[in-house]
């Protein structure tokens, strides 16, 4: 789903669509959070864990075939906590807006 250039292409055959929902496939909201955490991890070049969700807004359901751009901002860092803001956009319109905090691990991404 997540491409090398940080864009997202939602596949027609996402495994989660089997149960979310039958006959009405919508990407579960938590997938957006997982993608956001992964994007931050990619920028920091080490694995991170979701520590706190400050706010996350879902403006539009994500459905099969959609293509999204991502906008990632690393905000303040305190101790081992990295605050970040990630937005997913379709045609410059924000569809998901996430403010969250991750904590770093020492594991480097390959």
């Amino acid at each position, binding site marked *: 789903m997540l491409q090398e250039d940080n864009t997202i292409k939602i596949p027609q055959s996402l495994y989660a669509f089997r*149960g*979310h929902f039958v006959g*009405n496939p919508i990407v579960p909201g938590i997938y957006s*959070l997982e993608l956001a955490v992964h994007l931050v991890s990619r920028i920091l070049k080490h694995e991170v864990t979701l520590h706190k969700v400050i*706010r*996350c*807004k*879902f403006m539009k359901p994500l459905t099969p075939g959609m293509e999204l751009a991502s906008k990632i901002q690393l905000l303040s860092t305190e101790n081992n906590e990295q605050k970040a803001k990630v937005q997913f956009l379709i045609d410059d319109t924000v569809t998901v807006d996430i403010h969250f905090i991750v904590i770093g691990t020492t594991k480097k991404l390959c």
Partner: protein
Amino acid sequence: MSIEKYLPHRDPIRLIDKIISHDEASIICQVDWPKKKFFHNNSHTAMIEMIAQASAVMMAYKKTGQDGLGMLTAIKNFNFIATPNPSDNLTVEITVEGGLGQHKIVNGTVYQQQKSLVKGRVFLYLETKHSEKQNE
């Protein structure tokens, strides 16, 4: 009675397995966590989904959710305290804090053996019944 009567989520996404208790403004549900292997590597976000699903169960069970699909519109202030042990069940406690019309605000906590693992708030939008729309 099957939980699926109150929840549109199906395997592999369905997390809530049964209702343990409920009252006017709250509900406690159980998640058979050892069987939810699909989520074990993403347990933090899975716990958010548990709170969202338990909220959906509550709305449907209380028939405040009409017969349409409820949508998760926002989540706020989720603090992760601990990661669940994969071998024990989880309980999800939901309390309705308020709402306006079709919008509901719900507070949730996930526990494992009385230990709180995460707390947070979800915002839901509940679709209106087709018949109600026609009467408007």
